[in-house]
């Protein structure tokens, strides 16, 4: 397979940072997904490594623990020929009192083209995008957004259904603390899906209704209507006080299990961003069953990250050339 020609996509893409899906248009999301599909094809099978981004360097700057997202970004960069460099919060100077912005500037000064950042506080990627000259990719900022997770979910659904238009997609679980939810919500809405946000009222604010989304508290009532279920992990680590009486009660009300599968549409897609808590939001027979696309999501994660790195870099090259020309 030859290297795909992506220039027609790059020409229609203007952003140097990927901070959230809320501010993206349907057209922009489509470009990201189209490029991801082509890069996925081009790197499939023989695990071909492309050289689209050779000579560039991607810095992973993670202030929160992560294995899968971090590795997914690293692999995405490497498959396109870029070098990667890893920074973690425990080993770096933030442990010595440096502000995260100073840490990021130090890393940028070493000469990097993208900073991929994860942080426990919403908005930190926005602050870095303002402070740094290179491209910034949000790999999760507290409960705010995780745009590449949202994109990989969209890509997975699109691959199975061809389009998102008119599908009913339920996000179930800990919406309050979920960046995956906040990216999915906007991505799905832009792409024309009907979004149901489902969970106990302590985790699902009624204000989502004011913003135009359907809010539900009983999974069994909405389940027969759903084309896709995205089961979000209960983020015990982000909760000040437990928002439901017990895990047992939560599982009884919201876990996707074999009995509930019988109430669902025949072709329902079961998704989960991982890491999954087997027995809490999903039972093993569902997680490993025929409707589950959980591992495809992981594969698609690399594809959308390749796409984002490529498109941001192309916009950045144009931006730098324009600056050089005007100077």
């Amino acid at each position, binding site marked *: 397979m030859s290297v795909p020609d992506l220039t027609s996509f790059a020409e229609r893409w203007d952003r140097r940072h990927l901070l959230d899906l*809320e501010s993206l248009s349907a057209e922009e999301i489509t470009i990201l997904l189209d490029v991801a599909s082509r890069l996925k094809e081009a790197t499939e099978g023989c695990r071909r490594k492309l050289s689209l981004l050779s000579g560039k360097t991607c810095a992973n700057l993670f202030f929160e623990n992560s294995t899968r997202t971090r590795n997914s970004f690293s692999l995405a960069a490497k498959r396109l020929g870029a070098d990667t460099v890893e920074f973690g919060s425990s080993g770096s100077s933030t442990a010595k009192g440096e*502000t*995260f*912005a100073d840490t990021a500037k130090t890393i940028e000064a070493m000469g990097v083209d993208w900073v991929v950042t994860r*942080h*426990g*506080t*919403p*908005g*930190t990627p*926005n*602050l870095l995008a303002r402070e740094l000259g290179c491209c910034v990719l949000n790999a999760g*900022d*507290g*409960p*705010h*957004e995780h745009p590449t997770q949202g994109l990989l979910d969209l890509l997975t659904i699109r691959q199975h259904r061809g389009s998102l238009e008119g599908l009913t997609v339920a996000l179930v679980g800990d919406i309050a603390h979920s*960046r995956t939810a*906040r990216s999915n919500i906007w991505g799905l809405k832009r792409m024309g899906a009907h979004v149901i946000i489902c969970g106990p009222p302590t985790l699902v*604010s009624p*204000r*989502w209704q*004011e*913003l135009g989304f359907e809010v539900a508290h009983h999974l069994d009532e909405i389940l027969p209507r759903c084309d896709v279920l995205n089961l979000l992990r209960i983020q015990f680590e982000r909760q*000040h006080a437990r928002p439901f009486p017990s895990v047992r009660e939560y599982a009884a009300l919201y876990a996707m299990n074999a009995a509930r599968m019988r109430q669902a549409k025949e072709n329902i897609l079961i998704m989960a961003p991982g890491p999954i808590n087997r027995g809490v939001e999903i039972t093993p027979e569902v997680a490993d069953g025929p409707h589950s696309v959980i591992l495809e999501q992981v594969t698609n994660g690399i594809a959308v990250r390749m796409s984002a790195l490529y498109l941001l870099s192309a916009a950045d090259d144009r931006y730098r050339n324009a600056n050089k020309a005007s100077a």
Partner: protein
Amino acid sequence: MKKPLLIENGTLIDPSQNLNRGGRILMVDGVFATVDPSDGDIPQDCEVIDAGGCLVTPGLVDLGVELREPGFEEDETVLSGSHAALAGGYTSILAASSTDPVIDSHGAVEFVRQKATEARGARVYVVGCLSKGRSGKQMAELGLLSEAGAVAFSDAPRAAPSDALLKRALEYCRMLGRPIFDSPEVPELALGGVMHDGQVSLVLGLKGLPTEAEDLAVARDVRLAEATDGRLHVGPVSTMGAVDMLRRVKSRGVVVTASVCPHNLMLSDAAMRSYESRFKVHPPLRSPRHVATLCQAVKDKTIDAIQSGHMPRSREKMMNDLDQSPFGISSLETALATAATALVRTGTLDWIELIDRMSTRPAQIASLDAGTLGIGRPADVTIIDPNAGWKVDPSQFRSTCISTPFAGMELIGRVRHTIVGGELRFSG
């Protein structure tokens, strides 16, 4: 000996005498001597200030300023803060007890007062701690603090007395004739919050400060004030619920006063979309419905006073992410213009009403000999160009803190001169 000072060609505005007309005013020996003196009565060696096109008002009074000295001199000092106050048109400020050590002893009060005398900025009055160590539990030595010169008692900002302590202190303070200030918030409901709990916080994923955290505290405060007949000032407030509660108890005749910060009258929580710490204030910027209600409450006197909400924090503290950055902004130098832009330019208040809320009324609340141009009273004056538009440039601040939500913003109303005790201390 100070030279006599004459201000001429200005419009005299004095809410305490319902004065709003052209005229001149003479100050001798630190007090107002004569309004509209005849030429013969003006001393030979008199200094003259031409206030043409300007308003001549009683010096502004701020009920709550953090000066941060001792202990947090990187944020502000008595010197820098009291001069920032002058630049903002304030001639009297009440310094909060949130220092290190906290102001819960005679020596601590004395320290701040001494620093203020040396600074020769605005007059600095000390607010003593309500509880020992600002712990919210045991009453501080309010009588001794009062003797040392504390004019009010409070654990504000952001420290809440327990129900039992507030009740006891309100009772106890009746014999001292000094008010208690409470910044209303139920800590348990506000835990970890960084902004108004609403649609914007929901989308941004930032932890919210729910309005009910303030509403419940205001309800408690006014109920205890009524029960004890104590002198209570609640503020700054920021919610429709607080306004509603205050309106109801005031209509029943309960004596309680309240204040609001000017930024809460101008900006909404939408500002937080930029994720900048310069919008992280306490109480938080709320949704537009709350903002509109607060403006109306200032108009109808449900809210008595406007206080700057000056909570200075050093640059390095504000350079962090939103969770790590402290609440706080530099607002002494923008408070008047912010309030004028939010209230006077929009036609909600006229100037005499605004000066009432920023000078006369706060002086009454703290029982200060201020807030008036009355003959024989201390000659504290602010001269304001009401129509001057200016762009906020934090690099020009006298405050150590340059974090402001108004950076680069165009405001109206500029302080031209600030006079303390008949002495010209600021010209801009």
